[in-house]
């Protein structure tokens, strides 16, 4: 059944079809929440809240955006609200990432070549990727997750985050280069020593 048909029938009262509608997006919803909150339990709670909110507001979904984008927007907002509440009493860290306007110079020039696909089967690699992503500043991580993990377009990412297309491009560049540096062999980070990442000793 097509997504539009599912949505129409849910609106008409066949609520149980909502399971079917969101099943393909469960992973993505969780990952959005996790990438913002960096905590498994919080991410799960926020995912559930986001799905409930989507269900309650399905009548307001007008189909102007893709359903997945709408769902991601709701999840992102829920995660941000959760983070704001959780950090309401915390002081902003002093070592905030540089502004968008600042130049980012790559630090590692190791030759990665192509990463074998089966590398992702290794749990320690997935963990290293998650840790590297979690270490990014919020604004870079959000843009990167929406564009490169969730595969939203540049324009959809800008709209979802409420920022300009130019800001998305700038943040995306920095996020990609930072992650590349973080995951390059020999680059510092607590994960590198655990995985014995050293120059010339690539994990993939």
């Amino acid at each position, binding site marked *: 059944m097509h997504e539009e048909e599912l949505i129409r029938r849910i609106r008409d*009262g066949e609520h149980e079809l909502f399971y079917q509608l969101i099943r393909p997006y469960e992973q993505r919803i969780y990952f959005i929440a996790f990438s913002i909150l960096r905590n498994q339990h919080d991410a799960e709670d926020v995912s559930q809240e986001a799905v409930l909110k989507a*269900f309650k507001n399905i009548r307001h979904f007008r189909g102007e955006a893709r359903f997945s984008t709408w769902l991601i927007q709701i999840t992102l907002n829920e995660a941000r609200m959760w983070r704001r509440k959780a950090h309401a009493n915390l002081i902003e860290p002093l070592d905030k990432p540089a502004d968008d306007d600042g*130049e980012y110079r790559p630090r590692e020039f190791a030759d990665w070549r192509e990463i074998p696909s089966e590398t992702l089967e290794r749990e320690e690699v997935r963990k290293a990727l998650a840790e590297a992503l979690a270490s990014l500043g919020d604004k870079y991580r959000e843009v990167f997750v929406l564009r490169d993990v969730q595969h939203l377009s540049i324009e959809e990412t800008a709209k979802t985050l409420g920022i300009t297309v130019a800001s998305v*491009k700038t943040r995306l560049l920095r996020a990609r280069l930072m992650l590349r540096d973080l*995951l390059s062999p020999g680059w510092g980070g607590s994960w590198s020593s655990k995985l014995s990442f050293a120059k010339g000793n690539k994990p993939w």
Partner: protein
Amino acid sequence: MVVKCEHVWREISNYLEGDVDASLKTAMEEHFKGCKDCTAVLEGTRNIIAVYGDERFLEVPLGFGQRLHQKLEQNMPRQRGGVFGWVLAFAAILLIVGGVELGSSRAFYNPELRSAHADPAKSSIPEDMPVVIAQDGKVFHRSKNCPFILDKDKAHLHTITAEEAVREGYAPCVRCMHEFMAAAPPPPWLDPHPTDGEEHAEIETAP
């Protein structure tokens, strides 16, 4: 057009998005041919996009989907729509309308009793037995000769069946109907077995 490494780094993300004009694209590709560092940056960035875009990277905790569905189920309103719901609603409307119709029907007309003695459950009066009533009276009698018919009612007597009289709210005369009254023994001053036969003989409609 010739580009330096710094320019390439600034545009490398746009290059991978296919979001650079043709002349810059050509210039960058020329640069990559001769710059090992920029090629490493390009390949590394391309790999980052590839590994993070792989669905295997999106791991969810065990049982996540099940817990999500349970949460939804707990918060989902009970099914109200659907064919079954409409059938139920229609049946309920039918019952209500039918109930109102039956309630207003003459067959089920049950006026307030004019006297507690009118309760047919307390008597064994045959339903089809002709009885005499007065238009403005409260009781019905076995015949117009009942000595307990009030003088003012004697000019307005009618004969109907006991069932009709009960339904209209008339009470049986505890005197002339005493033999049918289970709960009320005849008063000592009333002869339970009249012998002249005249008193209860024929029932006539009053003039």
